[in-house]
């Protein structure tokens, strides 16, 4: 679905990304991890089209990213940035409704989707509140509802999906402002939509949270891709030491059997 082929990015003579190759099959969840300044957000920006790759290419559905029209891509790819700078007093409901901008599905269907998206992120009670007055975590949930609304048709059960191509969701540190319950809610949403065929790429710092839902982990450092593999392959004390310069123990979750990093 989404292929990153030997991508390099240089901005103002500063190399930010170097020969990155990642394959994200349809419905997979990829977690980009690494220390600050490793190039995770830059890679996300190359995928989202904000930066044009200096070398290599990004393929969406076996077609080069450059060949897609922005309006087409917006119908199946949504991007959640790290933080929002909205300073106008939209209600939360209106913010979510902006996610329907690329679609012409009509106000009735849009209203259904907006209500459902707000409910999905546990923010129905915020619908009529002014966005600017919300807390950081609440804002991020409303923004998450906005990007979900944008690709909602791809997030429901497979049979209903009539879109020409499957959905892609890019998340940049989505859980940074969330409390524990909402971090788990995010994992649940990611698992559910990937099961419906949406390809998810997310930047995360919490190794354990990522381990819960990622099919594939990517360790990045200084613009290079240090390691790509499954959670079990990557979460080893040696690799964590190499990438994050942290001494860590890896244990097994007593119930779920997934690896767990303890520092």
């Amino acid at each position, binding site marked *: 679905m989404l292929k990153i082929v030997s991508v390099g990015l240089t901005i103002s003579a500063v190399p930010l990304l170097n020969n990155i190759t990642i394959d994200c099959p349809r419905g997979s969840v990829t977690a980009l991890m690494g220390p600050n300044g490793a190039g995770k957000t830059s890679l996300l920006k190359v995928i*989202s*089209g*904000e930066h044009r790759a200096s070398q290599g290419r990004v393929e969406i559905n076996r077609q080069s990213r450059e060949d897609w029209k*922005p*309006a*087409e*891509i*917006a*119908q199946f*790819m*949504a*991007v959640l*940035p790290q933080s*929002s*700078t*909205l*300073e*106008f*007093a*939209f*209600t939360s409901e*209106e*913010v979510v409704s*902006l*996610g329907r*901008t*690329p679609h012409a599905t009509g106000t009735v269907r849009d209203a259904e989707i907006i209500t459902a998206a707000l409910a999905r992120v546990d923010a129905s*009670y915020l619908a*009529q*509140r*002014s966005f600017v*007055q919300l807390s950081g975590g609440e804002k991020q949930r409303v923004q998450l509802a906005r990007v979900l609304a*944008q690709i909602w048709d791809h997030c429901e059960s497979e049979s209903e999906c009539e879109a020409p191509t499957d959905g892609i969701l890019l998340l940049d540190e989505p859980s940074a402002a969330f409390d524990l319950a909402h971090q788990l809610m995010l994992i649940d949403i990611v698992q559910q939509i990937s099961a419906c065929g949406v390809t998810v790429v997310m930047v995360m710092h919490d190794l354990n949270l990522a381990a819960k839902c990622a099919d594939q982990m990517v360790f990045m450092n200084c613009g290079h891709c240090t390691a790509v593999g499954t959670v079990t392959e990557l979460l080893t004390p040696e690799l964590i030491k190499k990438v994050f310069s942290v001494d860590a123990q890896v244990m097994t979750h007593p119930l779920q059997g997934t690896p767990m990093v303890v520092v």
Partner: protein
Amino acid sequence: MKVLNTRLITPRLCGLLLLIALPLISLLGLMTGPVFIPLADILSMTLSGDSGNSQEKLIIEIIRLPRVVLSLLVGALLAICGALLQGLFRNPLADPALIGVSAGASVGASLVIVFGSMLTANGLLLGLSAISVGAFAGAIITSVIIFRLATGPQGTSVATMLLAGIAISALAGAATNTLSYLADNDMLRRISLWQMGNLQGASWDRVGLCAVTAGFLGLLIPREAGALNAMLLGESEARHLGVNVEWLKRRLIIYSALGVAISVAVAGVIAFVGLMVPHLIRLLVGPNHRALLPLSALAGAILLVAADALARVVIAPAELPVGVVTALLGAPFFLWLLVVQRRRS
């Protein structure tokens, strides 16, 4: 948690109220002036075509009606362009002066006043005096310069545009001051009066020019409402929502430069309408551009007709420049709004 709705009225109600106010204020505008014309006379004139008083009929037809219509159009243009620019800059305090239009227009007008005395004696172009043509040219030239300065290989930077606008406005201000220094007493008076804005020069030619511009922009601008809403989230967010941000910015800058330049050309610099009206409407009905753009146009039209009517009666038989009235009324009102807004939040 308590539900807080920050809106005061629905867009529909706001639109209805403005649509009721518009003809009433316009009638008031027709009635007031050095010669008071009673409502009954205006109604009988329009309804039966019969004019009991030919002098009143002349005043209405030649002086007041074009002036009221021109105020409507200029007010609507200034307000809708203000709303557009506030959306583009994602700053509720942006106003048309920011893209250098007003300062550039002042230079153009002052140049003509000081050096073009032979021109002004000549005929008019589309009902515009040479001063208006100078103002229009100055306005367009400065906006082009500022737009060019802010546009690089990475696209147009709205932040650079803001800074360039401030710098170019300062430069243009210095140029106007130099011209004022060179000017004789009569020229000086004309320059400063022009900068205060007034609608005395209203004529049907000017109304036509403004009507064409307003009609053109009135068709094009509301189509950008959805994209402008997306822009409020941020430029990259708008891009991810499928908006072609670079072209959108270009279109918006062209529309607002054109709208403001035309209104400055026919009416001089009128302060505060472009800043205050969209701000006020946003407080009433929220920032959704689908409602904000048309409602701002309506409210701007009403405000300017009312201000102009007031300008004609305050020190009658003399007139205050309408820009003075909008600033005199607008600034305290705006401050009051800010205080109320702070207390509520």
